[in-house]
């Protein structure tokens, strides 16, 4: 789960990390009040889960509270990459002496949290990573011991020479690690970590991603989720416990298992079609899940044909068949449906479908070819 910048700031602040002041506003008036409190020039930043906010006009400088109100009025309600802006973050347009990068990521290969720090921080960190990776120092942390003081110090010495700043940065490393662990994060990032003209070391921008698996037992983190900042169909799918990602094609896909779902999309493409979505109904699928899946997919006007690809293992194919039948009774599906079913209880499933005049294929390639043709014919 991606957190907004303002939420990430709140988490890191709670962990004791010194932050540039600033606050989040939902209305232009709130933005003006924050700008007045901060004083001087501020930056007004759209809070959406999308990159390239600056280029899209979602980040603006304001020299006084009145300008901040104007800019906030412009940005609030704006659409960036299909997402509506509901909140802006107002922060001081800081006078910055140095900009560093500090990131902490749960690393697949190291199987543990890994720090990445670089004195060459700021907006260009991705270019630094690509062109001069030696400027980024990596340090794996054994989670059974946590971040050792000497490790925090070593990372801090990568960024600063002045020992007061080194100690301040080392403390921030420890606080960032604690925030990462205590919030079940898979990423926690400060970019840039800056030094102010008076020498203080402060976090300017923050990014935190929470491991979705933590949310089951951490309702306190779950409430941070901002449905409005997401694609509405994806938010709806998540509430229905479906793993769903919207794409731009016209072949709707309902599959059990993430790997098979991706392979199905790939095969749609292979046969000349364009998948409209990734959708994994998961292992133990109830008819209810199938109904929800069909609702979400049929809500997309681009979808011209729908493919079910179910390989029954834990998933009972008769459950899926029942779901399809129930859905078509609940609401009218205007596009053709191709069904491929095999595995657990497939005889019963086929009987159920045939009972309402539907038929099922058993071969995946055949089913994909058919649905691609149907979608093309309809388009």
């Amino acid at each position, binding site marked *: 789960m991606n957190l907004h910048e303002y939420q990430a700031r709140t988490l890191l602040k709670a962990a004791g990390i010194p932050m540039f002041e600033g606050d989040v506003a939902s209305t232009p008036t709130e933005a003006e009040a924050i700008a007045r409190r901060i004083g001087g020039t501020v930056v007004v930043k759209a809070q959406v889960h999308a*990159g390239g906010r600056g280029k899209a006009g979602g980040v603006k400088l304001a020299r006084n509270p009145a300008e901040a109100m104007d800019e906030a009025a412009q940005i609030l309600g704006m659409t960036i990459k299909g997402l509506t802006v509901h909140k802006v973050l107002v922060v001081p347009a800081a006078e910055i002496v140095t900009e560093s*990068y500090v*990131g*902490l*990521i*749960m*690393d*697949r*290969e190291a*199987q*543990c949290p*890994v720090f*990445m720090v670089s004195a060459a921080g700021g907006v260009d*960190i*991705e270019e630094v*990573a690509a062109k001069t*990776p030696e400027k980024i120092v*990596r340090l794996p942390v*054994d*989670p*059974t011991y946590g971040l050792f003081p000497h490790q925090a110090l070593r990372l801090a010495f990568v960024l600063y020479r002045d020992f007061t700043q080194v100690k301040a940065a080392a403390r921030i490393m420890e606080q960032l690690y604690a925030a990462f*662990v205590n919030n*079940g994060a*898979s*990423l926690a*990032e400060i*970019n840039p970590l800056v030094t102010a003209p008076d020498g203080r070391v402060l976090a300017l921008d923050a*990014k935190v*991603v929470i*491991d979705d*698996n*933590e949310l*089951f*037992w951490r309702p306190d983190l779950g409430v941070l989720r901002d449905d409005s900042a997401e694609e509405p169909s994806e938010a709806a799918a998540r509430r229905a416990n479906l793993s769903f*990602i919207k794409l731009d094609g016209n072949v709707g896909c309902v*599959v059990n*298992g*993430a*790997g*098979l779902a*991706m*392979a199905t*999309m*790939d*095969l*749609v*493409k*292979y046969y000349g079609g364009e*998948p409209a979505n990734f959708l994994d109904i998961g*292992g133990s699928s109830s008819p209810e899940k199938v109904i929800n899946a069909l609702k979400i997919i049929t809500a997309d006007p681009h979808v011209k044909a729908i493919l079910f690809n179910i*390989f*029954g*293992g*834990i*998933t009972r194919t008769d459950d899926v068949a029942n779901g399809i039948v129930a859905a078509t009774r609940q609401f009218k599906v205007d596009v053709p449906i191709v069904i491929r079913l*095999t*595995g*657990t209880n497939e005889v019963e499933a086929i009987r159920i479908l045939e009972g309402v005049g539907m038929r099922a294929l058993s071969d*995946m*390639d055949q089913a994909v070819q058919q649905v691609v043709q149907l979608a093309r014919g309809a388009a």
Partner: protein
Amino acid sequence: MSIFVDRDTRLLVQGITGREGSFHSRQMLEYGTAIVAGVTPGKGGQTFESRVPVFNTVDEAVRATGANVSVIYVPPMAAAAAVVEAADAGLPLVVCITEGIPVMHMSRTMPFVRGRGVRLIGPNCPGLIAPEARAKVGIIPGNICSPGRVGMVSRSGTLTYEVVNHLTRAGIGQSTCVGIGGDPIIGTNFIDCLRAFQNDPGTDAIVMIGEIGGTDEQNAAVFVREHVTKPVVGFIAGQTAPKGRRMGHAGAIISGSSGTAEEKLAAFEAAGIGIMRRPADVVDLLRSRM
């Protein structure tokens, strides 16, 4: 022959009385797997399906029955602790089926597991099956598998079934099918399985089913080039997946773990691994190489 499990496998099921555990234990028994013990704290003394004794702790179960493999079907929040309990009881192989375990739990668990010299398969995996030995540990449907000499290793669940199904229908049997799981942190990776298949006299060729994300397949390809003499064919799911939807931030990018399908397929190509464009390709590709 097979890898990791065989005719001497004496299986213990952690969570045997739970909904998932009892369902799959019945399936495993039906397939012919030697389940010698179950564990559910507080249910010690009961008997599962009139034949499997249930114990309160893994330690007790191992001492009483000589179990040598454990399979775990406990809820996500208790699953990492169940892995630790199994490793602490001295079981050399632990298979964790549970999906949804926080990654930090696994990050803390792996050093303990490694320290005990235990092989963990999973979590969030379908387990493994050795058709010749009738040893099914996990949830891979037994009826789609057949005894034979192709080793199969996969990050996926149902996609594995799809490929195995093609093999079985074409008359190509499997030595062992291993689902290593799709979580960021897993106990056994492609290389571990490739090494075992290379060393297994019962395996003549290997099928690898990968996915986008991470660098495990790329590392495996390098291993194949350097250490595997048996033919290998591979598939990568997610070639059409939108890039950077889940991890589209500096951290993932600068940590170099984006792991696109192109990168992985290029690594396969460079290692001489036969590339399956479709799951169905597995049959012809294997036949052309065996």
